[in-house]
């Protein structure tokens, strides 16, 4: 029963900011990495994937939050999955209608948003216990945090691997592309490097706090 308990600490700015910085899904929680690594070969792909996930996240969290008192506890996961799958199908058809080339570039990974741990995790951990407005704000923050993470990865890989950003050449003809960065191993390396940077910064600030 404790699951249905509402957290009554109200809406703060932190509800929104949490997902962007302190609990960033990509860099801090390392969730939902399958689409993260697979589509981030270019900044454009990364951005569209981020926005698609953002849309699914916000709309399913809104719906989950609205029906949170109607769904029996035993079948809640199945219900959430069906809700998420519905919105993903919607996004899939929308992208197909708007830009066919983008649809072909992202391929099956749009449909794989269904199994993105972030979406189900937010629905279960936050939206099912909070009123709609708060749930949407939190989902919005998470989605934006996810998009930022994807964009950081996508931009790094595109700059290093192709010498471009959003398709514009940055370094002219003399640039020798670091091809491995747009290949699968590059995805692991770039994410590893970003995590390394974050953990380095964290340990620096902890040391600073001890000395200060």
């Amino acid at each position, binding site marked *: 029963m404790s699951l249905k308990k509402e957290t009554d600490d109200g809406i703060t700015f932190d509800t929104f900011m949490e997902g962007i910085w302190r609990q960033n899904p990509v860099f801090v929680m390392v969730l939902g990495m399958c689409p993260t690594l697979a589509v981030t070969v270019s900044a454009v792909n990364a951005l569209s994937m981020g926005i698609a996930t953002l849309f699914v996240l916000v709309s399913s969290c809104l719906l989950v939050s609205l029906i949170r008192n109607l769904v029996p506890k035993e079948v809640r996961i199945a219900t959430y999955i069906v809700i998420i799958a519905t919105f993903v*199908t919607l996004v899939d058809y929308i992208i197909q209608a708007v830009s066919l080339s983008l649809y072909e570039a992202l391929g099956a990974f749009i449909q794989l948003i269904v199994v993105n741990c972030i979406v189900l995790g937010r629905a279960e951990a936050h939206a099912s216990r909070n009123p709609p407005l708060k749930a949407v704000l939190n989902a919005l923050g998470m989605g934006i945090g996810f998009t930022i993470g994807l964009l950081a990865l996508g931009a790094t890989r595109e700059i290093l691997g192709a010498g471009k950003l959003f398709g514009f050449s940055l370094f002219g003809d003399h640039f020798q592309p670091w091809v491995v960065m747009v290949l699968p*191993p590059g995805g*692991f*390396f770039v994410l590893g490097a970003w995590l390394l940077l974050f953990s380095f910064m964290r340990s620096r600030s902890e040391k600073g706090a001890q000395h200060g």
Partner: protein
Amino acid sequence: MGESLSQIFIGALLTNNFVLAMFLGLCPFLGVSGRLGTALPMGLATGFVMLVASICAYALNLVLSAFHLDFLRLISYIVVIASSVQLVEMVMKKYSPTLFRAMGIYLPLITTNCAILGVALFQTARDYDFPQSLAFSTGAGAGFTLALVLMASLRERLQLANVPTVVQGTALSLILAGLLSLTFMGFAGLGGGE
């Protein structure tokens, strides 16, 4: 189309390994690969679910396309996968409770394993017929197990090594996975893939 069964199998196993080349199923790959003892059964369980899901998805796809209900595909796949995971979970709880406890949360999480939905979606997208789907899903399952076992062995070794504190944890695993993925790229061209 026109690919032979062995080409599809080797493609899914090595050249386009689900974990290392297509980034599917990374959560269990990084979560369970700490010890060899849990990595192998986890790989096998996932492989089994993949096979079941692939057969069900093939049958479902026939029905759905017959009635022009393509938009229901994603939802029905997910439901099928969730029920087969439930099945595996029940069997494992009955016959090997220790293993069941060792896998913990990662067993129900097979449901949200992208690799399994990936198998179902890719075989539909590529119009594989029934034998081809079987070859594809067994190859994918074997490839997932292979990657998991390799990674677990590497990480067991790494525990004995002296690594700087900053690098420890996920960052190290990711860079390790990158190196593993780099070696798997050496298989490119095998089996007459792209």
